[in-house]
C-alpha cells in the first residue's frame, strides 16, 4: 500500500532549511498495523506532515508510493481523497465551522473526486450516529464548531470520529494517546480496532507503549534522528518500555525493514 524509499526531507527555516528526515524506509501493506516509536524530536510528526503534504517541507531525496503512485506530487486534498488520513497530534480549532458541515463537505468532495453522487442528508445523519457510537463520542459535540472548546481528550476522540466517518485506506495516528486518560485511551483504541479491516492499514505514532496494549501492532519501528533504526514485532515495544531508548539510539545499529 505505502512504500517509502530513502526519504530525505528538510523543514524550511529562516536559515534555508534543516534536514529532519535522513533516509527513511518503510513498507506498509493492507491489513497491517505499524507502530512508530522514538524519542521526542526524532522526526515522527515531520514524517506525518510530509506524507500528508503540509507546506513548509522540502523533500530532497527518495520517493513515496501510495498504491503504486507517486504521492509527493499531489495536493493534500488529493491525498485525502485517495485514502490517506492523519489524526493530528495537535488538532486545530475552527470557530464558525460546525463539525457536521465540515464532515459533509469533506465526504462529498471525496465522493465527487470518485465521480459519486453527494451523500443524502438521511444517510449522512445515520452515518454520524453510527460512527459517534463506535468511537464513543458524545453526539452533542458533533453539532458544535470543529474542536472549539473541546478538551484535549475530546479533540483526539474527534480525530478518530473523523477517521471513522471518512473510512480511509491508510490512517496515520500522531500521538493520539498523549493527553488521554486511561478510559479515553481505551475508547480510542477500541474504535481503531473496530475500524481495522484486511483492506486498510494504520501507522500508529507514539512514544509510550501503553497504547500498544490495546492496539496490537504487527510491526514496531524505532525512529531516531530522522531514520528508522530498528524494526521488530510487538515485543520490541515491551523491550523499549523496559529498557528505554538508550540501547537503541546508536545510529550504527540501523535495521532494514
Amino acid at each position, binding site marked *: 500500500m505505502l512504500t517509502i524509499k530513502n526519504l530525505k526531507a528538510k523543514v524550511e527555516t529562516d536559515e534555508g532549511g534543516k534536514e529532519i528526515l535522513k533516509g527513511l524506509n518503510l513498507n506498509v501493506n493492507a491489513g497491517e498495523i505499524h507502530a512508530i516509536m522514538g524519542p521526542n524530536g526524532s522526526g515522527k510528526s515531520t514524517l506525518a506532515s510530509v506524507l500528508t503534504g503540509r507546506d513548509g517541507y522540502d523533500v530532497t531525496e527518495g520517493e513515496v508510493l501510495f498504491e503504486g503512485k507517486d504521492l509527493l506530487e499531489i*495536493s493534500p*486534498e488529493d491525498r*485525502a481523497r485517495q485514502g490517506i488520513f492523519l489524526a493530528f497530534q495537535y488538532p*486545530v480549532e*475552527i470557530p464558525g465551522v460546525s463539525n457536521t458541515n*465540515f464532515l459533509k*463537505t469533506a*465526504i462529498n468532495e471525496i465522493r465527487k473526486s470518485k465521480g459519486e453522487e453527494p451523500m443524502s442528508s438521511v444517510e449522512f445523519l445515520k452515518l454520524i450516529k453510527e460512527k459517534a457510537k463506535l468511537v464513543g463520542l458524545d453526539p452533542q459535540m458533533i453539532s458544535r464548531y470543529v474542536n472549539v472548546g473541546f478538551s484535549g481528550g475530546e479533540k483526539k476522540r474527534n480525530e478518530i470520529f*473523523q477517521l471513522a466517518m471518512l473510512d480511509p485506506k491508510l490512517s496515520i495516528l500522531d500521538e493520539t494517546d498523549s493527553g488521554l486518560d486511561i478510559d479515553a485511551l481505551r475508547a480510542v483504541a477500541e474504535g481503531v480496532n473496530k475500524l481495522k479491516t484486511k483492506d486498510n492499514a494504520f501507522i500508529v505514532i507514539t512514544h509510550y507503549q501503553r497504547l500498544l496494549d490495546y492496539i496490537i501492532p504487527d510491526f514496531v519501528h524505532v525512529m531516531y534522528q530522522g531514520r528508522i533504526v530498528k524494526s521488530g514485532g510487538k515485543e520490541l515495544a515491551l523491550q523499549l518500555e523496559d529498557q528505554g531508548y538508550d540501547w537503541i539510539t546508536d545510529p550504527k545499529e540501523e535495521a532494514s525493514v
Partner: protein
Amino acid sequence: MNNTETEITDLKTKLISEFQDFEKNLNGEAETTLHFIRKDAFENFKELGFPIKKLEDWKYTNLNPALKQNFIQSFTEYTPALKKEDIEKYLIKNSGINLLVFVNGHFDIGLSHIETKNDKVYIGSFSEGMKDHKDVIEKHFAKIAAYDKNGFVALNTAFAKDGCFIYVKKNYEVKEAVHILNISDAQSESYFSQLRKLVVVEEGGSINIATDYHTIGDQKCFTNAVTEIFCGMNSKVEHYKIQNEGENSYHVGTTQVHQEKDSRFSDTTISWGGAITRNDLNSVFDGTNTECHFYGLYLLTGRQHVDNHTLADHKMPHCYSNELYKGIIDGNATGVFNGKIMVREDAQKTNAYQSNNNILLSDDATIYSKPQLEIFADDVKCSHGATTGQLNPDEMFYLQSRGIGKENARTLLLYAYASDVIDSIKIDELREMVVKKLEMKLK
C-alpha cells in the same frame, strides 16, 4: 470619466444653482417649517461644500474623482419607469414584510406595498406622512442628524423631499419588518440622489428595518443617504443596511441614532457593492441603561473602497455598547475602519467594547484600521482591538487534509469568519439572502 476632458463641471456650483428649481417644484410647500430647515441646510452646504481629504475624517477617502462626474438631480414629478420584474430579485421572500421602493430618491408607490396599517404605526413616504404626522416630523426632522458639520448631510437636508417616514407609537411592536429598497436607475443617466429617512419609535415600541441599495444600469451614480432614527424610552430598533450597488456607484450614507433611556438599538452594515462607499454610523446615548450594537462586514475586491466611520457616544451612565466589524479584502481594494467610543464625563459605569478584524486575501489589498477610545469618566469598562491577517494556514491544511479542496476550504473559513456578523440579522429571509450572496461572492 475621461481625464483628458478639460471642462469639468463643478458639482457644488451646479447643485447650488439647482436649489431654486427645486424650490419651484415644492408646490406651495415653500413656506412650511420644513422648508425653513431646508433653506438653512442649503446655506450650510454652501459654506461646507464637499469634504476634502485634508479633513481628518476623510483622510483615506478621496471623493474628488467621483464628484467630477456631471451628475444630474431628479426632482421634477416622478414617472415610474421600473416594473415589478425589474426588482423581483431584490425582494425579501417574506409575505408579511412591508416594502417601500425608492427609485433615484423618489417613492414608487406602485412597486411598494404596506402590510402594517393601523393607527399605531405609519410606514410610508414623507409627503404622505406630513398629512397626519406633521408635528412628529417637524419635531424630529434634521434634529437628530446635524447638518452644520457635514456637507453631505447639509446637502441631503436641503434637497430632502420624498423620503421615507416610519413612525411607531407608544408600546406598539411592529411584527412585520420593513424593507426599504433603494434603487439607482442608472440605465441612461447619471443621477445624484438624496435619500432621506426618518424613523421615530416612541416609548416601548419596536421595529426591524432593512434598507438596501441596488443599481440597475451601468451609468455612474451617486447616492447620498441620511437616516435619522429616534429610539424612545425602552424601545427596540434593529436596523440593517446592505450596500449592494453596482461597480460605477458612489455611496455616502449617514445613519444618526438618538437613544433614550433603556432603549436598545442594533445596526448591521454590510458593504460589498459600489466603487466608493462611505458609511457613517453614530449613536448618541441620551439616557441611562441604553444598549447599542454595531455589526459590520465589508467584502471587497477589484478597486473597491469602503470607509466605515462609527461613533458610540456615551453621554449618560450605565450604558452598554458593543461593536464588531469584520473585513475581507481582496484584489486592489481598500478598507477603512474608524470606530470611536466616546465616554463623556457623566457616563460612569459604561461598558463599551469594540473590535475590528481584517483578512487580506491579496498583497495589494489595504486596510486602515483606527479604533479610538476617548474616556473622560473614571469608572468604566472599555476595550478595543484590531487584527489584520491572512487565512490561518493551519486551519486551511486541516480542512484540506480531510479532502476539502483549496477553494472550498477558503470559502468555509471565510464564511465562518463572517458568520457572527451575519447572524446578527434577525429577519430570516434576509439573512438567507445575505448568506447566498456571501457564498456567491466567496467563490
